[in-house]
């Protein structure tokens, strides 16, 4: 299988087929992330399209030496979601939404590579398990920061907790998560 970095290099040279391959590989996660953050199907769809459009336009700015592709891609999608949240001045709810249409769309696509799909399912299980290993208050602030697009100060105000406490929870929570994921073999080379 061609690596993400090879595909990005091809995209940077103007290969639209490479972009389609990346789209097939990551659009579901990007869409899920946008749905979780925005709770709005149409706008999440726009986020998906705009995220990959930016990959097309900015592929030559991606530096493989600074990290792997997926965090860069998710960073683009997440920033678009935060921009949208700030534009709407609406913060998402804690849940991922209850839209029936989204549940139907969550059914795995049979056209996907079975091995890839199997690995995705397993990785999701491991990550959820790692998150569940965290104390609830640490997991909560990490999810509010990442999926809610909130700063530590905003989290402290929302939870009515001291800022220092929130900072400590974020730091300890992410460090523990890193340990758990490393133990479970989830790292930068995983896909």
């Amino acid at each position: 299988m061609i690596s993400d970095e090879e595909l990005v290099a091809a995209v940077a040279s103007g290969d639209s087929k490479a972009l389609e391959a990346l789209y097939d590989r990551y659009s579901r996660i990007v869409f899920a992330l946008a749905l979780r953050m925005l709770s709005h199907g149409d706008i999440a769809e726009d986020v998906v399209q705009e995220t990959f459009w930016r990959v097309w336009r900015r592929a030559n700015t991606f530096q493989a030496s600074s990290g792997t592709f997926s965090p860069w891609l998710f960073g683009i999608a997440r920033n678009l979601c935060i921009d949208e949240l700030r534009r709407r001045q609406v913060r998402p709810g804690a849940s991922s939404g209850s839209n029936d249409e989204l549940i139907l769309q969550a059914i795995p696509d049979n056209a996907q590579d079975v091995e890839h799909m199997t690995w995705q399912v397993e990785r999701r299980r491991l990550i959820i398990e790692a998150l569940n290993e965290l104390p609830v208050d640490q997991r909560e602030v990490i999810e509010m920061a990442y999926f809610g697009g909130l700063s530590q100060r905003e989290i402290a105000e929302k939870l009515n907790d001291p800022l220092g406490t929130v900072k400590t929870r974020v730091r300890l929570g992410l460090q523990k998560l890193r340990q758990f994921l490393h133990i479970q073999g989830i790292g930068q080379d995983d896909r």
Partner: protein
Amino acid sequence: MKTQSEDVEELLPAYALGALDTEDMIRVERMLAEQPLLRRELADLRDVVGQLPYSLAPVEPPARARVGLMARVAANQAGGDTAGQSGAKALASAAVPRPRNWLVPAVFALLFALVTGLSVLTFSLQSNLNTFAQTNQQLVASVDALEQSIASAEQNRRVLADELAISRSDIDELKSQLLDERTQLASLNDQIAQERQVFTFVNAPGVATRELVAADESAGRGEMYMYPGDTTAVVLFRGLSALEPGRVYQFWLADGVNQIPGATFIVDDHGIAQVVIEAPREVNAFNQVMVTVEPEGGSTSPSKNVVLEGNL
């Protein structure tokens, strides 16, 4: 006490999550630029953060998202996508058009906002226009009033100039009249002085009187008052006829050898006149006087037209 590096290292997890406030973010980025170890730590944390989306159940996006994306890419490859070249366009305008249940209301809302905005703008412009028109009318009225005031002032100026000219003319006339009256007054004063002198002269003790008469008594008469040994005499005439223009009466003194011309005079409307005589020597040295009619200015020898005569 923690070092600055340790302090920043503690902030790295929140930085990787994008949860730092601006002030802390600047501090972290400053240290990252200086310390490669921190950059490696951050890359590791970002990989962890990058796993978080995998905790979500994957969701297949609608097929139109892919179609729209590839249409944009194709347009971009053909050089026809101008919107994508800005690189920072709004998310709402990014997608290729597709059917949405909110699109129609959004269009109507946009149109409503546009119409409302234009209406407000039109109303504002109309209001401004009305204000300008009112101001213009006020200015025109003010200019008209000002022009009328100027015309009125000009008319007043002309009237005053005319009045001033008339006043100057009147003043000149009054000055002339005053000068005449002063001259007349001076003449009257002279006349009064002369009459006082005559009155004093004729009423003084020792004065001698002689009569001058005409052959025809109806032609008038004269009375001469004089002092023996004095060169001055006064003669009062009455009943003399008014002479034709260019003719005057003239008084003469005679001593049997010479005829000395004296003063010339005319009479008033009543035929009266008084004449002061200054003789070249004492009056009683002469033995005869007479009055003739002469051309204006007098003569050096008497004419034959003798009106009055008398002996001294």
